[in-house]
């Protein structure tokens, strides 16, 4: 298939960016979206134009490195990551617009690459269970009901991609945070720090410039791992409990 690509180009964080238009011919439907961009980049390199910078690493939908706004949708039209999107989801002659995540808390570094280090700083504020190496009890000493373990796993599959933030009109990271708070809150090991965790993570979230949640649900719709919206209710519940407990 032949495509027209409108792609955001920005030399660095300090410079202004703009959309550029490229034509790409002979795209196979078996290509992944990023392989399509690889082919474009080879073409640009041959023509003496600097290739377009975009992030990716595993290309299997698990590392969370990739992430593009494709025709205005985070990760494009399917429920998956950008790297797992394939060209069979597009058709011949189509025009595709490609932009970076847009959020105040994710500044653009270059072209389609953004800085998501704010997510790491949120985790630093309590997205863990404090247990030093070597001090753990025998694994079977604390059984965990299967339903809790399964649900903890489901929400722990968040890949930290940032699509939820990019999709949210408020630029909120509540889904990302809710997933972590719910994961650890479902496990007996996560109880001792539960109150402190939610309070500190939310404080960091606000400090980073992410917006508040107004229950729009665009985050869940964009999430490649289908993290459910109710993790945000859990987040709010935990926050209320923590405040009530004097945190």
């Amino acid at each position: 298939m032949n495509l027209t690509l409108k792609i955001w180009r920005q030399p660095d964080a300090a410079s202004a960016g703009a959309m550029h238009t490229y034509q790409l011919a002979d795209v196979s439907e078996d290509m992944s979206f990023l392989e399509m961009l690889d082919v474009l980049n080879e073409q640009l390199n041959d023509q003496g134009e600097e290739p377009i910078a975009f992030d990716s690493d595993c290309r299997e939908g698990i590392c969370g490195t990739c992430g593009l706004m494709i025709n205005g949708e985070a990760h494009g039209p399917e429920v998956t990551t950008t790297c797992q999107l394939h060209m069979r989801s597009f058709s011949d002659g189509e025009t595709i617009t490609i932009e970076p995540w847009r959020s105040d808390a994710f500044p653009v570094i270059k072209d389609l690459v953004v800085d998501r280090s704010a997510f790491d700083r949120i985790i630093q504020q309590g997205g863990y269970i404090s247990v030093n190496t070597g001090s753990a009890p025998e694994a079977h000493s604390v059984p965990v009901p299967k339903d809790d373990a399964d649900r903890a796993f489901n929400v722990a599959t968040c890949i930290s991609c940032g699509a939820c933030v990019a999709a949210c009109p408020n630029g909120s990271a509540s889904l990302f945070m809710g997933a972590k708070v719910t994961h650890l809150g479902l496990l007996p090991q996560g109880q001792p720090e539960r109150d402190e965790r939610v309070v500190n993570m939310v404080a960091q979230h606000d400090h980073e410039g992410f917006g508040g949640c107004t229950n729009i649900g665009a985050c869940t719709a964009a999430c490649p791992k289908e993290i459910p919206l109710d993790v945000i209710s859990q987040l709010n519940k935990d926050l209320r409990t923590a405040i009530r407990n004097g945190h």
Partner: protein
Amino acid sequence: MDMPDTVTSTEASASGSLDGDYDDAAGYYTPGAPLVDAKAPSGPIAERWQNRKFEARLVNPANRRKLDIIIVGTGLAGASAAATLGEAGYNVKTFCYQDSPRRAHSIAAQGGINAAKNYKEDGDSVHRLFYDTVKGGDYRSRESNVYRLAEVSTNIIDQCVAQGVPFAREYGGLLDNRSFGGVQVSRTFYARGQTGQQLLIGAYQALERQVSAGTVSMYARHEMLELVVVDGKARGIIARDMVTGEIQTHLADVVVLASGGYGNVFYLSTNAMGSNVTAAWRAHRKGAYMANPCYTQIHPTCIPVTGSHQSKLTLMSESLRNDGRIWVPKNQADCDKDPRDIPEEDRDYYLERIYPSFGNLVPRDIASRAAKYQCDDGRGVGPEVDGTRRGVYLDFADAIERLGRQAVETKYGNLFDMYARITGEDPYQVPMRIYPAVHYVMGGLWVDYDLQSTIPGLFVTGEANFSDHGANRLGASALMQGLADGYFVLPHTIRDYLADGPFERISEDHPAVVEARESVTSRIEHFLTVNGERSVDSYHRELGNIMWEYCGMERTETGLKKAIDLIRGLKEDFYRNVKVLGSAETLNQSLEKAGRVADFFELGELMCIDALNRRESCGGHFRGESQTEDGEALRHDEEYAYVSAWEWAGEDSIPILHKEDLVYTAIEMKQRSYK
């Protein structure tokens, strides 16, 4: 060939009399002095690690914060070490090339992690895990290291559960296990098909906790481009800030490389796009020996290539082989038919036929080679790429009938979804198509029992070292090794080295530091000014083809020699004719790739030389010249029961080979048989 008496076999090779006729690599290397592991422990195998831990000197808690540790890599091996050493109170700096430490490629591991918990009461034990791992490695690993790995495996599970890793559980709330390729006990712990992700998130969270506590400083989007060696000791690294392009010097008392595997030398592999050998290779050029570089694991269950645009290959966890049945059509004429229309009697379940006792669960190398033979024989399935169908069926129809769709979905749901997304086919309806792909490298930097390389003060952990898997790795053992090294081994062994520190401060204008920094800047400058005709990727793809063709599933003397010539020619052309646009002062992904590919050329050549030297088939290394009459791998313990440790001898010299003899006292060497 059966080896009844192990001691004799190692003595035979200790005499070092390699029959001249068999040394295919003569002229490609210089023989060096034998290598001995000075830290090798002695005594009963089960007491060795306890003794070493006791003998390793302690560092006073008050001194720890005066000791600086650099850790390159935040995968399971790096993040676990950084967290643990941070908790102990050392001053740690860690580096990764991704934008967050949580994205290291350990995240992609699917199937599970082994541990000798024996929760199933099925006869598992530390000794059995040890035995299986040595046997799986085809008697080319070090027994003391492997025993220690098996020993600490149980602590890993305890630690991860305490961190909140949501392993799969049974209805009673206890942990579930499954059995994994090549073994007959259930000792693999898993978190659906995303075990690596969950383990890495656990280690990452422990790491971030230390960042918050101030003991660990994290440098994401920083790439190590050179090792700093002062007075024979590793004292730091030169790194490039990948966003600003700044070339930074980081000095320390000790450096740890946990930089992962180099499978991307094959261009197409299941590794991440950025996986590289640069950190390890730069250390190699500074004096760290590279061990068994040719030992590559080719994984049998990957999604086949669709065309030349292919940028990477995707693994389907081999846990799928527990329930899926592998087959090809008996008749070439059926290869392009809808598989559902091929009747039972026209299908060849070739693994079940050739290996009746292990069937679809034979080790990875056997399964991979068998698939290659079927396809070479014209019975492959799927699209034709370059004239051959490279794929075999992995069929779940029986499993779905036996267990029900629900059960299959619970076990493998995310893998099936991934397959459907990539291929556009529904594996609940149509059998999957799979083909082998490069997946893991057993080779890596040589380390002693303490995980220290031949450069004092340089430690190497995880996939980047060579020590535990011999010539082949068992499924679910790399995650175990990464976490064993990082949580439980390195923190003990490194203290013995650090007990002599803090070492004399060195300044940034020390000649060795200046030299390292200049070599980095001049390389960058070179790439940006060649202004040739071809992209970095085009060279990488061509190198990968050479490696896959001649140093892949089957290797021969003629093929390897040809590969070496081709690599040398291509490398020369690369330096003269590569085209890297953009500047050094911003994010520049072509520039990053150029540096990595440059190192892959040198590594690729060494892999071929190593493969050439080893005229035997062992584990993942299959030499066409060394097989039994019915085509099985044939090991030669008298000649080759050694570790090949290669020393860099300079840009214009051939490498030096040091041999470390493998001595087995706790286990008897046996020729593998899975029939």
